[in-house]
């Protein structure tokens, strides 16, 4: 078995192994270290001789490394004696317990004491089973940077005494919101890379969808989990049509809708149905907007009135200037650019999205539709200066030039 096989087994087993070891040792950082040591050993020994049960081998090796680590900590001698006397048999762990442990692992990885970057790195490595190198590549940062984030995160968790357990009922909903937002951040980074020269990072979007599916399987009664999954699936369904062969972005208006992934649309609509049982939350509402696009044969035949209503609802449950801006775009489609421009100008007057290229991008488009070409051009040039994604920037500049 080669490195790719080790990686594959690890993808499947990582969360389960780290969760079991954390419960076994009571120490998340130690469990993660021991699990990583086991993977490193597998990379050396599996190419020489493949184990009969790769999953069992990883768990047993990680467990041995955990015991070694505990043995080295003299202060924990008593606990080691306890462990040695009471070995956990991995085969007959209650499946519900494993589910709860994996959920607990997600709650720990996304704990509010951690920085947002640390939550993302830890979730991808511990729950998703990605290597430090894979995470670094996905976010265009160096391996030592990711390594440092994870090391610091483990120290923070230990220092803050974060327990390995499901949050108490009273905090559960809010903490779940924290987990969902980490998954959403990963997806967003995958669907619009914030920097660099690529628009999409489909691998990262896939990781987010995978995490969302895991959450949906483990928390089937939480509508917003399905809402987030629906949003990810419906957005990812458009990926095949979103870039042209040289990697430049294609706007929704100009996309060849026949290239959308209709299996993903169907999965997204199914998840949205599950999200709708008790009224839609912020993710569910965004998914409903994505569904309105996915169900429309063309831009002209899109139910823009419905989209405006959904944005209004979203603005009430999760007010944000980006939502306002998107509402303006929908209003432009439903009622014309003049009304939309008023919304955008209000946003600018209240300075609620300072420094964002999105405001001048939308304002430029609206002015162009109103025939105010010199102003439109100035706005698009401003947007290009503010935009950090090179692909998007060149599209903006092309549009600005076309207006002269």
């Amino acid at each position, binding site marked *: 078995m080669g490195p790719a096989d080790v990686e*594959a087994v690890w*993808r499947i087993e990582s969360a389960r192994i780290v969760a079991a070891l954390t419960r076994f040792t009571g120490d998340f950082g130690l469990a993660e270290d021991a699990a990583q040591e086991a993977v490193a050993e597998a990379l050396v020994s599996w190419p020489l001789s493949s184990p009969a049960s790769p999953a069992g081998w990883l768990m047993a090796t990680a467990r041995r490394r955990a015991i070694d680590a505990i043995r080295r900590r003299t202060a924990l001698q008593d606990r080691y004696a306890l462990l040695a006397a009471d070995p956990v048999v991995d085969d007959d762990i209650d499946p519900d317990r494993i589910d709860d442990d*994996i959920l607990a692992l997600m709650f720990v990885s996304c704990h509010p004491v951690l920085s947002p970057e640390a939550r993302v790195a830890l979730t991808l490595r511990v729950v998703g089973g990605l290597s430090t190198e894979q995470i670094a590549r996905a976010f265009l940062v160096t391996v030592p940077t990711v390594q440092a984030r994870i090391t610091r995160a483990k120290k923070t968790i230990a220092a803050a005494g974060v327990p390995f357990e499901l949050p108490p009922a009273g905090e559960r909903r809010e903490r779940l919101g924290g987990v969902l937002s980490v998954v959403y951040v990963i997806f967003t980074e995958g669907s619009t890379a914030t920097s660099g020269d690529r628009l999409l990072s489909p691998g990262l979007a*896939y990781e987010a969808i*995978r995490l969302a599916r895991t959450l949906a*399987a483990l928390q089937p009664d939480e509508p917003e989990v399905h809402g987030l999954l629906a949003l990810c699936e419906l957005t990812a369904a458009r990926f095949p049509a979103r870039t042209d062969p040289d990697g430049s972005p294609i706007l929704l208006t100009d996309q*060849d809708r*026949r*290239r959308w992934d209709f299996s993903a649309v169907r999965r997204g609509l199914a998840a949205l149905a599950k999200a709708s049982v008790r009224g839609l939350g912020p993710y569910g509402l965004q998914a409903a907007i994505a569904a309105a696009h996915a169900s429309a*044969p063309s831009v002209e035949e899109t139910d823009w009135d419905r989209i405006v209503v959904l944005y209004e609802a979203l603005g009430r449950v999760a007010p944000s200037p980006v939502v306002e801006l998107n509402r303006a775009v929908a209003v432009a489609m439903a009622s014309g650019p003049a009304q939309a421009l008023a919304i955008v100008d209000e946003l600018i007057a209240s300075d609620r999205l300072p420094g964002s290229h999105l405001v001048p991008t939308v304002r430029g488009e609206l002015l162009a539709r109103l025939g105010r070409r010199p102003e439109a051009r100035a706005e698009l040039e401003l947007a290009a200066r503010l935009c950090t994604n090179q692909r998007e920037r060149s599209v903006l500049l092309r549009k600005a030039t076309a207006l002269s």
Partner: protein
Amino acid sequence: MSQYMLIMRGTDETNAAMMANVDELMAATRLFIEELAKAGVYVAAEGLDDPGQGVVVHFSDEAPVVTDGPYGETKELFGGFFLLDVASKQEAVEWAKRVPAVPGSKIEIRRVPGEDEVPQDSGKFVKEGTLRESSGRI
């Protein structure tokens, strides 16, 4: 990441062994599908009815000829599939090894190319487009 289809291939013998233990195998398969769902890789899975109940349509230069199943000389019969969304072919192989299956059966693993890999003007798109235009919805 890609979708892979795990295609179950059995013989008359493995099918008979399966039917002898059908309840146990169904329960194990249900648990396996739950595992797939919790890992975030499950897309779809179906099992097929007895090949003796199937029919085969043969194409030639003449009009298609329909015969009763199974498949003539074919020794290995397609009995069902799992469709998974995994990170790599190796991961598809790892999951395949965990499928509850009777000795003697085989699993063939095939990648499903993504929408973005299909040439833009292929017949597939024309067909879907026409379908959408006539129904007005997807």
